């Protein structure tokens, strides 16, 4: 795979939020405004790029049996570094809103997922690019959600009023709003995939994990 493809892979084709569906917890929690989303996205990008680089660098010396603890130590180190840097230089308001979600990047499944699925098998440069790409994809997804939520809730973007005297739908700032907006984005993303398939003349098949074969909710209901 070319370097550019590795980088762009995370941004669209395997976007962590819209396609891989990883890291949903911070996605829902911090996408309440574009500014929070940007802060969280950049912090995660730094951790992803750093941990991918170090994991790839030391992949030959990490024994397979203890690889997960080793990855977690590496990731936790980068997260603590980010936390310290943000405490020192980020605006205090951003620090308070992101609060607990910065330390929680340690258990964000994208970071461990990329270490395990990509960095442990690929070269240093490719792993670094993959980390940056995945991080940017995550930031982009978060910013899209954050911008939509902030705009509908307050009529502002990055805390600047775009439409003065916007009525304000504050539901969108609450977790409920996060679920609603995320669902609409996922629906749009799936629709575009279905349309692409139809255009190229292929039949769209629902992915295994979403199809009727592996879901037995209706079976449970009819059995009752």
């Amino acid at each position, binding site marked *: 795979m070319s370097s550019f493809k590795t980088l762009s892979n995370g941004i669209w084709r395997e976007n962590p939020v819209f396609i891989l569906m990883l890291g949903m917890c911070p996605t829902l929690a911090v996408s*309440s405004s574009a500014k929070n989303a940007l802060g969280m996205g950049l912090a995660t990008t730094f951790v992803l790029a750093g941990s991918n680089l170090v994991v790839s660098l*030391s992949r030959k*010396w*990490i*024994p397979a*049996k*203890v690889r997960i*603890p*080793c990855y977690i*130590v*590496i990731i*936790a*180190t980068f997260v*603590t*570094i980010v936390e*310290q*840097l943000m*405490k*020192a*230089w980020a605006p*205090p308001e951003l620090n*308070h809103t992101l609060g607990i979600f910065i330390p929680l990047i340690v258990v964000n499944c994208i970071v461990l997922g990329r270490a395990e699925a990509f960095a442990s098998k690929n070269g240093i440069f490719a792993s670094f690019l993959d980390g940056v790409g995945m991080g940017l994809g995550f930031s982009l997804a978060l910013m899209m959600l954050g911008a939509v939520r902030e705009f509908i*809730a*307050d009529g*502002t*973007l990055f*805390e*600047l*009023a*775009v439409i*003065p005297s916007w009525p*304000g739908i*504050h539901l969108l*700032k*609450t977790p409920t709003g996060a679920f609603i907006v995320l669902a609409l984005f996922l629906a749009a993303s799936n629709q575009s995939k279905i349309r692409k398939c139809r255009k190229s003349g292929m039949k769209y098949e629902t992915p295994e994990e979403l199809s009727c074969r592996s879901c037995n909710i209706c079976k449970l209901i009819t059995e009752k």
Partner: protein
Amino acid sequence: MKDILKLCLSLGFFCAVSGIALAFVNQITAEPCRRAEEAERTDKLKLVLPAETAETQVEEAGDGVQFFRALDAEGKLLAYAAEGTSNNGFGGELRVLAGLSTEGRILGVLVSRHSETPGIGTQVTDRKLTRSLWEILAGKAELDPFPPNACLDSYADKTLGGTFSFDGANAVLSVSGATITSKAVLTAVNSISQAWQKKNSSTVMEEK
């Protein structure tokens, strides 16, 4: 056996390296962290204290209320500030920062930390005006750093001592629909009032 030793050593090696890295980062950021915290505090204090304030000093906390002294350029005591906490906000902890004259008159009140519901509780807690994109493009002036908030402003110019409530002669305002947040702000101000009385009675005792 040999295998276990190898696993332990390699994991230990990673922990040691990460420990060294973190110690290094901690050393670099310790000073900026402290300065950022201090800057954040003085920025907020500036809003509730008189404009002539040149220096603020932290006093010892008592009963969960933190007092600050504001000194002017010559080192004369100008005013006090106090930060009180209530744990009964809709989203948990809520902190109120109040500027106080030396006689205990409230100069200004702001909510320094909260996690209230956006759009409901924040009607009580936020002193916030949003700048419009078009205003910035047109090069309009800066916003008032201390915008009005009817509920918080109803505390201003009242004198500490006794307890405040939503009715009676010394009444403060609340926002309907945000009763819990309004009450939490009230509780925090009352805790400041109590601590102020206690502080004053203890200084009088010392003087005697």
